[in-house]
């Protein structure tokens, strides 16, 4: 009886299931961008991908803790703590979720998972899609937020403004061409 009890490292299976079923751990890219822009001091981004992938590209200010080195003493200090809101991310949220599950087992606090990972980050913040005309005002507000957030993270003014200009151009040209010719005629008469 007693040895089995001692093996019981971390939380109980019941609590593990309870935490596992909750979706509170997921944090959306929009919420994350908002917190990054406001320079939330308790936010800590942790990249769970390999070191190679991390060196090629990662989110701003992220720390690399490859999943394989989860229990490395130095790196584990980023996870086993109670000061920061640690947001785990990977390309999508598969690896990050695995890291979260292991952290959950150990009873680590304040771990979160970026919903959709870097793929979602690119699709929402870096390359947001223009909402359709039939979509609600909230969708447009979200879009303009994402656009603004994108600018903060270095995206140049691109696609949206080009589309708008193309629409306006033909209308203004028609008006410009007609009046000039008419005005010249009466001037010559005088």
């Amino acid at each position, binding site marked *: 009886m007693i040895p089995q009890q001692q*093996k019981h490292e*971390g939380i109980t299976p019941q609590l593990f299931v309870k935490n596992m*079923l909750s979706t509170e751990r997921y944090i959306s890219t929009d919420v994350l961008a908002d917190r990054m822009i406001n320079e939330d001091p308790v936010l800590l981004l942790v990249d769970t991908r390999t070191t190679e992938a991390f060196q090629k590209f990662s989110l701003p*200010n992220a*720390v690399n803790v490859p999943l394989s080195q989860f229990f490395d003493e130095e790196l584990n200090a980023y996870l086993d703590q109670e000061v*920061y809101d640690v947001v785990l991310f990977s390309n*999508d*949220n598969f690896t990050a979720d695995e890291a979260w*599950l292991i952290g959950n087992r150990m009873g680590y606090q304040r771990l979160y998972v970026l919903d959709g990972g870097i793929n979602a980050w690119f699709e929402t913040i870096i390359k947001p899609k223009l909402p359709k005309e039939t979509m609600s005002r909230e969708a447009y507000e979200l879009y303009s937020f994402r656009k603004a957030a994108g600018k903060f993270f*270095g995206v140049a003014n691109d696609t949206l403004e080009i589309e708008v200009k193309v629409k306006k151009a033909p209308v203004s040209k028609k008006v410009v061409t007609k009046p000039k010719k008419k005005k010249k005629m009466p001037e010559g008469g005088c």
Partner: protein
Amino acid sequence: MKELEKTRRISISAVLFLLVIVIGLLTFKKPEFNFINSSDKTLEFVNNHSHVMSLADFQKLDADSYLLIDVRSNFDYSKGHMGHAVNIPKSQLLDPESKKIIETAVSSEKPLIVYGENPETANAACLLLYQLGYNELKLLSIRSYYESKEFHIATIEMEKPLYDFAQTMKTESIQPVKKIAPKTKPIPKKKKVIPQPKKKKKMPEGGC
């Protein structure tokens, strides 16, 4: 006489004390579920990625040689599921009934194969089962969904980048946010202090 009474009292209290211990031991219930595989072992299991099984590999197996577990809800299961699949919703993995089903499969040396709405949700169930001590485990890398009154499954590749991130950042001249970085970079320094600060901070406050 007084000494006799004292010895009686002591012996009675000793007997009572022993009784309490015996009753305690007899009524002690073993917790039904224990984590058997340690976190280190689980991490190794996860890093091998040997537990992820593609749909093509799965279809090569004989139908009798495994136990296929559908970890979606009862409702989703009733709308449609893969053939031979047994429904054990994630929330009921620790029920005695589910344990029976799993144990019978394990005793006949059948591997457990888990699937759900998507690999992420199924993986949570998969890792739970692994930590409970079921080593012969596979995770189907499929997405299942219900569309036009039919149940569908599609293979899905996990951790596949949709873009070449570094390349798109270059070609679209998105400057990596070096400007912002230095402001918040001192994070690592703070972290070394993390385990200690709460207790240490309280001490000087009291001193003041």
